[in-house]
């Protein structure tokens, strides 16, 4: 039976004197603060304080700019959930777009990421990934405008379909255009995250599966997918968060009947109603939804991939 014996005090180096010990304690305190200060200050001033301000505004029912703030209450939140008001419908539509574009990017992104990670020659991998990330170097506004040019009735898509003989599609200013725009915007993120997860795929398990009699399809569903579930969760939640709050794509491609929560908040702050209290409470609801998603992301997502 082995024991660990604490070292004999005399064999330890001499304890440093009180003076330098105090300085060491100061260093230990100051060093992390100095390293964290820029990012911490930035986060505090530009994220935490504005969020607190919006929270305060949301607690003033019917607050309009220029009016005296009459007192706190949860009137704004009650207004959102009151039946007969269109706000829940707007939130529902945002969720619809977010879930839809998450599924679409997953469907489109998984095969691509799988091919790059597993099947493409190793020397091409980085080039292919760069190719996928390249659209992110241009402004998302410009990319949305590009989709207007492609999807409008006399645009590129219909010219190509017309040349083949398929009747023209009228997708602009409707939900299909929003899904296409969002899927396009967020596909690079999904591909990168899935790639990171698929790269760590243990191919020996696939070999073992085929040794034990699984055909490729069974091997895929029973071995590959469960291994990449954290990556799928991370990518899916990231795209969900981004598309829930997206403003540019629904505004430019969505048309008159696709009000989402971010467009609605914009209208409250800069539109005719100027109801900053209501806009703030909707913002808080969006922040809450995103926070829940981030919590899920941290818990279930693949940490190494994000």
């Amino acid at each position, binding site marked *: 039976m082995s024991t660990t014996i604490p070292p004999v005090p005399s064999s330890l180096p001499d304890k440093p004197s009180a003076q330098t*010990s105090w300085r060491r304690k100061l260093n230990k305190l100051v060093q992390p603060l100095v390293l964290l200060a820029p990012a911490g200050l930035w986060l505090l001033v530009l994220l935490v*304080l504005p969020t607190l301000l919006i929270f305060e505004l949301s607690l003033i029912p019917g607050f309009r700019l220029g009016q005296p703030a009459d007192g706190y209450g949860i009137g704004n939140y009650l207004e959102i959930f009151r039946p007969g008001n*269109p706000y829940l419908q707007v939130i529902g539509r945002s969720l619809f777009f977010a879930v839809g574009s998450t599924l679409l990017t997953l469907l489109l992104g998984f095969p691509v990421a799988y091919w790059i990670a597993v099947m493409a020659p190793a020397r091409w991998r980085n080039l292919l990934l760069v190719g996928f990330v390249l659209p992110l170097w241009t402004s998302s506004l410009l990319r949305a405008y590009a989709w207007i040019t492609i999807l409008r009735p006399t645009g590129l898509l219909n010219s190509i379909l017309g040349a083949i003989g398929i009747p023209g599609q009228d997708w602009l200013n409707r939900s299909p255009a929003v899904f296409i725009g969002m899927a396009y915007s967020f596909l690079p993120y999904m591909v990168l995250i899935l790639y990171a997860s698929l790269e760590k795929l243990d191919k020996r398990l696939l070999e073992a599966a085929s040794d034990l009699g699984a055909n490729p399809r069974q091997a895929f569903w029973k071995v590959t997918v469960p291994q990449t579930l954290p990556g799928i969760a991370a990518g899916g939640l990231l795209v969900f968060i981004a598309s829930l709050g997206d403003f540019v794509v629904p505004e430019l491609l969505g*048309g008159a009947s696709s009000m989402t929560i971010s467009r609605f908040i914009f209208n409250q702050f800069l539109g005719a109603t*100027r109801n900053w209290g209501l806009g703030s409470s909707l913002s808080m609801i969006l922040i809450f939804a995103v926070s829940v998603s981030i919590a899920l992301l941290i818990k279930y997502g693949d940490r190494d991939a994000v």
Partner: protein
Amino acid sequence: MPPTYSHSPHPDGRSSARTSRRRFLQTMTAAASSVVLTNCARNLSNPSAANSPTAGSPSPGGNGNTLYVYTWANYTDEELLKNFEAKTGIRTVVDIFDSNEAMLAKVEAGGANAYSVIFPSDYIVAEMLDKGLLTELDRSRLPGLSNLNPKWSNPTYDPNNAHSVPATWGTTGLIYDPARVNGKTVTDWNFLWQNKGSLTRRVTLINDVREVMGATLRSLGFSYNAKDPKQIEQAYRKLVELKPAIASFLTNGWEDQLASGDLSVSMAYSSDAISLIEEQSSLEYVIPRSGTSIWTDTMVIPRSAPNPDAAYEWINFMLDPANAASVVERLNFATPNKIAFEKLPTNIRNNSSLYPPEDVLAKCEGISPVPPEVADVYDRFWTQLTSA
């Protein structure tokens, strides 16, 4: 049994001290945030205090010879700014807004001390006056005021032009592509409802609650400034019927799509419509027969203007008939300046879209502010219309 420690003490032995220090920092941050927040809410609810030029840090428009102008798109161009600088030596920087409400929101939230000249529309001038955001103009510094057409010298939104100077005026109408409406001619708002089947998602309306609801009210025989909630609700229901035909609510930005044939009819301000027709003469602009809104865009000097002297120079420059005439020729808006009007070439003076005849103007109304309860009714229906 190897000796175990129930907890490993921190090497420096300061575990309990660190917790209390963290708690201290947390409480201080919370206290600081709450102090900042209460001050912020008070500032937002009392914008005139926050907007005074002496409050806060020096604003960007503070230095001597720069003028910051806040205006609509297409109201200024490079040549105008160059001429102004050549004449007065003042450099101008122009910022653009596309809706009065967005401008008002920015001004109220504390942006007013960045601009010396703003171009609000008529009904918003009345609202800004109520909120005390405008300065009273010193008429002795504005000799050009006598050039104005008498129709604009005593408007209802600002008696005697005490705080504002009319700069442009126009109408709101429908611009359409005759090739895409099956050979019919558009004469009235009801064209949209009568043809909504063939116009599915080929119509855009202006993104302004009063213009759109007002036009619908007019098509039902009511006034643009209706105050009866039942009338407003009728207009709302009529607009809901038209919803499938509406591609989107755009004030600017429909031009390319109308020109390329993706849209058939757009509701537009006359100045934007006429500019597009200059580029593509197959399009036509019509002032609906049942009447439309006449708008006047004015120049005002906000109370917290950083450079009021430059602002007066700008207003005088714009009132000068020669400048007004040349700007109108290039940028296609109608001028309320009588002397400038006479300097214009005949084809522009006779352009009935730009300067409609008196009988058409008689049926048009200006949009005026409504009491807050009525404004709420309009807002509620507009929200429901745009969110559905």
